[in-house]
């Protein structure tokens, strides 16, 4: 992963990022978070994350995740979190009440808070990967 390469001179940052990633996955149902990770990867075009496929024991295929708004294989819990994740990635400041309350209804208040924290972590990791891959590929190509 690009993290190892870029953060090699910054072991404290690398360690903190690893710990944060582990804490995020431990705080939320990993299957639920994995489905959101894949959807975030689709939206951001993060091929390295998509190439990992489904890392948790998800019953959903990539096609289910891609067509989550219409797929009948997507549960109400997954649907609520996928809707939140999409809005979070595309325009976080315009998250509407219904999108938030749908997740709260499924996960509770504590579940919502931890889901948002975990979503932040997986989204930021993907943005970092995309940025660093672009920067270092360009730099190395010169």
């Amino acid at each position, binding site marked *: 992963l690009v993290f190892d390469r870029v953060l090699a001179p910054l072991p404290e940052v690398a360690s903190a990022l690893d710990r944060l990633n582990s804490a995020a996955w431990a705080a939320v149902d990993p299957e639920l978070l994995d489905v959101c990770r894949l959807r975030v990867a689709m939206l951001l075009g993060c091929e390295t994350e998509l190439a990992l496929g489904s890392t948790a024991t998800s019953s959903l295929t990539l096609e289910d995740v891609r067509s989550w708004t219409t797929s009948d294989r997507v549960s109400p819990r997954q649907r609520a979190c996928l809707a939140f994740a999409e809005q979070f990635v595309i325009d976080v*400041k315009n998250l509407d*009440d219904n999108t938030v309350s749908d997740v709260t209804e499924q996960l509770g*208040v504590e579940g919502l808070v*931890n889901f948002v924290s975990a979503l932040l972590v997986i989204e930021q990791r993907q943005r970092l990967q995309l940025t660093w891959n672009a920067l270092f590929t360009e730099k190395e190509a010169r």
Partner: protein
Amino acid sequence: MNRSRRIPLEANVAAQSVRPWQDPDVSDALEQWMASILKVRGLDPVTDEAVRLRCAYHHDCHT
């Protein structure tokens, strides 16, 4: 845009933590991550602050 609070702040919880409801491991890990980033040098403070403010504006973050 809705800026009203969507997560209830219970008095006893709010008094104990700046991040009520959050898993303490996640909270600690976030603090550690932020602290580690702040120690990184290489970007001048003016650019650093300009980026921070630009991100806050983009995300409508008033804190």
